[in-house]
Structure formats: C-alpha cells, structure tokens
C-alpha cells in the first residue's frame, strides 16, 4: 500500500515537473539568459561580430579623407553561405549606425546591392511633372551624392560531428571597397566556434 502510494506521488511529481515552464519574460539581448544554439548565429554572436567589426573599422582610419569631406558608404551584399537564411542586415545595420555615429562617414540609402534601400529618393523626383506640387519644393535631379565606398561581406559555416558531439565553425568576412579603384581598403575576418554534446538519451 505504502509502495503504491509512493509510486503515485513520484509519478505526480514527475508530471508536475515535466509540465512546468516559464512565463514569457524579457531578457537582455545577448545576455547570459539568451539562447545559444550550435547550428545558428545567435543574438550574442551578431553583437560580438558587429562590435568587433566596428572597432576594427574605426581603428583602421580608412574612412579619413584628405579633403575633409565625410566618406559616403553604400551597404552592398553580405552573402549568406551558411544555408540558415541569416538576417544579415542585423550586422550591416549595426555597422552603418556606428559609421554615422563616428562622424567620419555617412551611409547612402539611395543605392544598395539590390537597388535602392529607400526608393523615396527616386520617387520624389518623379513629382517634377506633377502639377499638384509646388515645383520649387520638388527635389532636383543631379543632387544625390554617389558613394565613395562599399561595405560587403560573406558568412560561412562549417559543421563537424564526432560521436554525440557537434561543432559549428562560423566565419564572417567583412570588406570595405574603395569604389574609385575597386580595391579593398579594409577587410577583417571574425570567427567563432560552438560545440554541444548530446546526452546519451538523446535529449
């Protein structure tokens, strides 16, 4: 009798434990509570790569111009070769924010890898034949500034498995190209690895 009571109690406790979850709550992006998975690029990884790219780019001094003008940078393509459909704009948006904040460069939204990032620059010039608008307020043609440099990159992933252990190796390669010459004036590679060993029971 006592044994069956103990079994029932244990089973109830297990079910209770298995059913427990946590209510939705806010966490610090990239903080110690953030999820870390082997196969993906997680919040902390994006933050780390972006921060290191920014530090390296600002330290290099390549954004300095002899004429004192701010360098105009276009954000080109960051090729995702990981097969994970990464949101590469997480990286480029952080870099462009830092570039603007540095006071050394500005980014253009009038041109990008897949056309203009913001089509408004072209759209507003199409108002020049629209009599609804005061033509003196319509933006003129020939005023948009063309970029001096282009930011591009590539993300690669290599997976290795040995027994129950799985390891991923991510490589981020970021390049800044001088569009006058086509030469890469700054490039940097950032890499990191993550490893996980599955339990014997498989969960």
């Amino acid at each position, binding site marked *: 009798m006592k044994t069956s009571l103990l079994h029932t109690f244990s089973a109830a406790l297990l079910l209770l434990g298995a059913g427990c979850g946590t209510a939705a709550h806010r966490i610090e992006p*990239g*903080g*110690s509570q953030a999820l870390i998975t082997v196969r993906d690029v997680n919040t*902390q990884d994006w*933050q*780390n790569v*972006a*921060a*290191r790219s*920014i*530090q390296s780019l*600002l*330290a*290099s*001094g390549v*954004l*300095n111009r002899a004429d004192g003008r701010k360098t105009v940078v276009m954000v080109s393509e960051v090729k995702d070769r990981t097969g994970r459909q990464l949101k590469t704009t997480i990286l480029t948006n*952080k*870099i462009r*924010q*830092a570039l603007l*904040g*540095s*006071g*050394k460069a500005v980014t253009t939204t009038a041109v990008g890898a897949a056309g203009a990032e913001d089509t408004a620059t072209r759209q507003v010039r199409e108002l020049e034949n629209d009599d609804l608008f005061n033509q003196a307020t319509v933006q003129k043609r020939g005023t948009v500034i063309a970029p001096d440099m282009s930011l591009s990159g590539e993300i690669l992933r290599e997976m290795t498995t040995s027994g129950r252990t799985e390891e991923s190796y991510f490589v981020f390669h970021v390049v800044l190209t001088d569009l006058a010459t086509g030469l890469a004036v700054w490039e940097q590679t950032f890499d*990191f690895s993550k490893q996980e060993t599955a339990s014997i029971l498989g969960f």
Partner: protein
Amino acid sequence: MKQSFLLLTAALLLLTGCQDTVNTVRNAETAARRQEVDYRYFSTDDFCRDRLQLIRIDRGTTPSGLLQVQATVHSARYGFWSELWSGLTGENPYHLAYKFDWFDEQGMRVETPASVWLNLILMPGETRFLQAVAPNERCRDFLLSVKEAE
C-alpha cells in the same frame, strides 16, 4: 582508510594534472612607449577580482584621431587549489564577458552598437588584451565592465 586517502589524492592529482595552463615569454626590454591610464577599480565580485587580474590600462589614438584603450588582464586561475576547484566546477577555461562604455566631454554616455557584452574565454595563466575604440572624437572617458559569463 589509508588506501582511500591515497586513491583520493591520486584522483585529485589526476584532475589537476589534466588542466592546460598558458606559459609565456616576451622580450625583457619593450620598445613600445605606452601611455598608462591611472584607473579606479570598483569590484562587486571578489571571486572575479581574484581570478582575473587587471595588469594595466593603456591609451592611444587611432589614425583617425579616436581614443583607443587597451586593458591587459591575466587569468590567475592556476596553481593546485585553483586548478582543483575549476576542474571540479567545470570552469576551465574561464568564461567572461566584458563591455566598454564611452562618455563625452560632458560625462554623457555615448550610444554605440559596440557597447555590448563581448565574450572572452581565458585559459589558466593566459594574458589577454581587451581593446576598444571610442565611437567618435567627442569621447573622453570610458568604463570597462567585466563579469563571469557562466
């Protein structure tokens, strides 16, 4: 009794003997002219303070005129007891996170995507150099925060 003591000692020695520590050698007379920063250290974690030694902080200027700082830190987690403890707790290598915050001439914090917690994995006895560049020319001061990540 004696047998179990010997067995325990052997197990402990085996455990500590498995730890990899970093050994270094450098030129005795360094050529670099460093600008050392006089710093104020405020610690809320005695364990972290004892395990991670802050050797020095240097400052410099980038080619674009931005303030650059470098903190030299050293993992003091080596030696018999430290290795034993980190072996038992699985804290080898030592996982840390650090962050630089920047302040302008008025003492206001300057927002930048680079002011985030960055990972740092330290082997016992390893020396690392935590570098950061100010987000713009208005930055005059900095704050380096370090915490144990695991």
